[in-house]
């Protein structure tokens, strides 16, 4: 299999896992942060959105500590899979997760904020419990915005470089993602591979961005 194909497969694997975990964790969190007030909320939001402004290499350094065999994540992974976490594609997925998390969280918070609370109240007065109201009203109305956020997060995960190289290195076919592959090819003077990888990255980014914009544009709420 060609180097380009291997990098595409690793990148898609990493991005899919990262996006899936981010969506599962950040969706309820975004709803909670949008709909509830508590002391220190401002601080919690600031901490959760920190990866947006921190240099990815600095995040990589922190993750390196956590994923080392003495770190909490490294020890946990060793106990579960009997393999070290560092220099694995799963480590690249964790790095992509941390980097793309705030991007999705922000989109999800905006999406939940755009759901009129009066619609939720109306559904509750009809006897729907808050949980059923969330499934039948809030989530469907926020779904397009959440989908757009997930696509943006996936695009960001696909292009992640700084933190990924710190924790996953660049093992071809194992941890070498598209972004890492471009860097390595340039360093090795292999312009053809570098441009091939860059072209694939561009196509994937265009698809993700257009799909994300389309979802945001055709929001269900605008149809009211």
């Amino acid at each position, binding site marked *: 299999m060609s180097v380009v194909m291997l990098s595409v497969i690793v990148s898609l694997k990493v991005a899919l896992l990262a996006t899936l975990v981010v969506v599962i964790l950040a969706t309820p969190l975004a709803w909670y942060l949008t709909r509830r007030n508590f002391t220190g909320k401002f601080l919690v939001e600031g901490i959760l959105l920190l990866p947006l402004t921190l240099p990815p290499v600095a995040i990589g350094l922190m993750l390196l500590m956590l994923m080392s065999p003495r770190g909490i994540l490294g020890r946990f992974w060793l106990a579960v899979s009997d393999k070290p976490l560092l220099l694995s594609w799963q480590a690249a997925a964790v790095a992509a997760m941390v980097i793309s998390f705030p991007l999705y969280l922000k989109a999800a918070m905006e999406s939940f904020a755009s759901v009129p609370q*009066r*619609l939720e*109240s*109306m*559904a*509750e*007065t*009809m*006897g*729907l*419990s*808050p949980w059923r*109201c969330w499934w*039948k*009203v809030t989530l*469907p*109305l926020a779904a397009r915005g959440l989908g757009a956020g997930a696509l943006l997060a996936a695009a960001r995960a696909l292009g992640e470089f700084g933190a990924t190289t710190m924790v996953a290195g660049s093992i071809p076919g194992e941890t070498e993602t598209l972004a890492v592959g471009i860097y390595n090819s340039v360093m090795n003077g292999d312009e053809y591979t570098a441009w091939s990888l860059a072209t694939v990255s561009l196509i994937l980014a265009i698809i993700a961005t257009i799909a994300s914009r389309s979802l945001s544009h055709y929001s*269900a*709420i605008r*149809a*009211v």
Partner: protein
Amino acid sequence: MICFDMYFDYQTSDKQKSFSLSMNLSWQGHITGIYGPSGSGKSTVTEILLGLKDKLLVCGRFNLGDRVIFDTERSTWLPRSRREIAWVPQDSLLLPHLTVAANLAVNAFSTSNVASIASEFGLTALMSKKPSQLSGGEKQLVALARALLVPSQLIILDEPFSALDTRRRDQYLGLLKTTLQSRGTPALYVSHRADEIKGLCDHLLVMGEGKVQWHGPTTAWSTLTDL
């Protein structure tokens, strides 16, 4: 028997606007009108009864027959979903992602009830449409049908037909009166239009500046005029 004794005090965070409301009443009526000018507290009363206001801002108690809906002294506060108070707001609040049929069936007893009320209200042809494809009047009819489909001990109608033209409003008021009379569920009808109140309600609360200015049988209120 509807009975409430409550006090509501609200001040915005910038302390520019405050609103307080107090009332101590009990009455028995089938369709009760709540009448008063804008800012008199009509909608605030309904929002408190529906549980839309923050419970920390409300003091007092509200009973619906034998059921205590809230009693802040005894720390009783039923959530919105268990109050069994149906609501028809001014802006219909249909769920935009669902068809008319799905809106009616959100928490209806059974699908046969949905079909029967749709036919009664002339909505059968609209069942597969989304709210965005309906006219203002059609939306309000669907909202009214939806409120009648859920189990409730009280129906609150907050100026449901205020955005409609006179001909359609009269037509819908007639339908509403017949429907409420046949079902026997008590209703609160909020309006600032005297003709609507006179034509529909047997009991009246006149509100002004957050207080009940007068209450009694509608026929006993002689100076009822549009506000």
